[in-house]
């Protein structure tokens, strides 16, 4: 039950609000001064070298070698030279997949800093990716069976062999589709700056595969 205010109550000054305001301003100011309001730096991709092993979710990949050699054994024709990335891939899913799936697992490949994958030429279907066994080429990766996978890029005739090659490797996640609630292995992506095609379609950004690791390998040259 309320009553009439006591007449001799001391006069109270509103001090809490200004104190809080000053504290908040000070917090923001200090954060800004130490860079707290800037964008967080991109998480750095792991820098790996020759022989490194990377778990890409859907598969485990050992980056064994990079060779320039003439084509043979179903990997190109003998009078052309190819840059071949030799990988040891173990399928970690529960079913047989195709070696061609490494195309989306290795997001980008640069030879001496020049991007050769993804190709700027839309008519280029990308590198040929095969399983190499017993001197023949196949396409399947059975679950839990390590296989040698070769990704072959054709070199232009007369062009010098690259010294180094660097590979941007992505990862896959076990993804639940919104449309029908079923699961599948899907490349991990993030929103990045828009590509020219996306700009044309009116999009402000385009989804790019996340690079989990960058593998740099020296390139050997082998003559037939």
């Amino acid at each position, binding site marked *: *039950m*309320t*009553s*009439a*205010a006591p*007449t001799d109550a001391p*006069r*109270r000054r*509103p001090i809490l609000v200004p104190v809080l305001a000053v504290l908040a301003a000070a917090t923001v100011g200090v954060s800004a001064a130490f860079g707290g309001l800037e964008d967080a730096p991109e998480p750095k991709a792991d820098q790996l070298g020759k022989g490194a092993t990377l778990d890409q979710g859907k598969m485990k990949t050992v980056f064994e070698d990079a060779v320039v050699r003439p084509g043979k054994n179903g990997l190109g024709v003998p009078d052309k030279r190819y840059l071949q990335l030799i990988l040891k891939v173990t399928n970690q899913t529960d079913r047989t997949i195709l070696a061609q799936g490494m195309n989306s697992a290795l997001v980008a490949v640069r030879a001496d800093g020049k991007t050769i994958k993804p190709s700027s030429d839309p008519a280029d279907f990308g590198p040929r990716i095969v399983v190499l066994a017993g001197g023949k080429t196949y396409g399947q990766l059975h679950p839990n069976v390590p296989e040698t996978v070769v990704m072959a890029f054709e070199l232009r005739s007369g062009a010098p062999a690259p010294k180094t090659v660097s590979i941007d490797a992505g990862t896959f996640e076990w993804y639940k589709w919104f449309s029908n609630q079923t699961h599948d292995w899907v490349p991990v992506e993030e929103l990045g700056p828009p590509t020219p095609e996306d700009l044309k379609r009116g999009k402000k950004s385009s989804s790019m595969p996340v690079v989990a690791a960058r593998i740099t390998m020296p390139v050997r040259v082998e003559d037939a």
Partner: protein
Amino acid sequence: MTEQNPDDTGVWRHPAAGEPSWFTPSKRVPRPDARVWPPPPPPSEPPGSSTVPIPVVRHASRNQPWPPPARPMAVPPAMPEAPAPRPPEPPVEAAFAPEPASEPTPVPVAARRRRRRRPMPKAAKIGIQFSGAVILACAFVGVRGYDALGQYREKVPAASERHVPKGRSAPLGNATWRLVGIALAPSQFQTPETPDREMMQIEVEATGLNADAKYYTSSLPGFYLSDKAGRMWLALASKTPEELGAGKTGRFTLMSAVPKALEDQVELVMWPSEHEGKDQSGPSLRFAR
């Protein structure tokens, strides 16, 4: 209640005009409380001046078990300086009090009778509830099934078969079709390792209805041999016409293996495309022999 003023209810006071608002940090000026309850006597109306007759409710609260006596239990302390008149009866009480005290409850009993019928037997009640549940479940399953069937029919249209008399032609897709003949294939096509089967050779003539008929030479329609029970055997083309088009006629030669016993009763059935033949959906032709 406050000690200062017995008339002060402390519930609410009308703020005086021009009073500073509550958040202004200025000292409040205490004002004298005004008495609101019991209501002060009407200032100027002398008793008996009202023109509205007031019903007498004198004995209502004494003789009835309900409503319970609503007389105040705790009367505010008597105020010597202003003796309050008896507050008027709240209207709610008056509404529930039956007016004549002499006839106590005949009307409510009749109303109860009307509202509550004889209780339903327990078995009937459970039966009704159970059948309601079953009907709802059936309706749910039925609606879902109907929806699924509709979706399936959109993908795979219902089959409709047209019977073509012997020697006649019938249109299907982009051409009209005529069965020339079904016969045993020459002996070099027979397979001696499977004596229970017979290789049949079928001749079909097609006349294009429009220019799109030319696609039949490369992507064949779905040809099958079928027995009366509806079993189907694949009829694959061994020879297709060089060209087909609007008004042009070409001849397909088909080969099909069927069980030996059915050799002279199998009939040619065709769908406009291999895909529809595989699904057995949409329009088809059945040629009599």
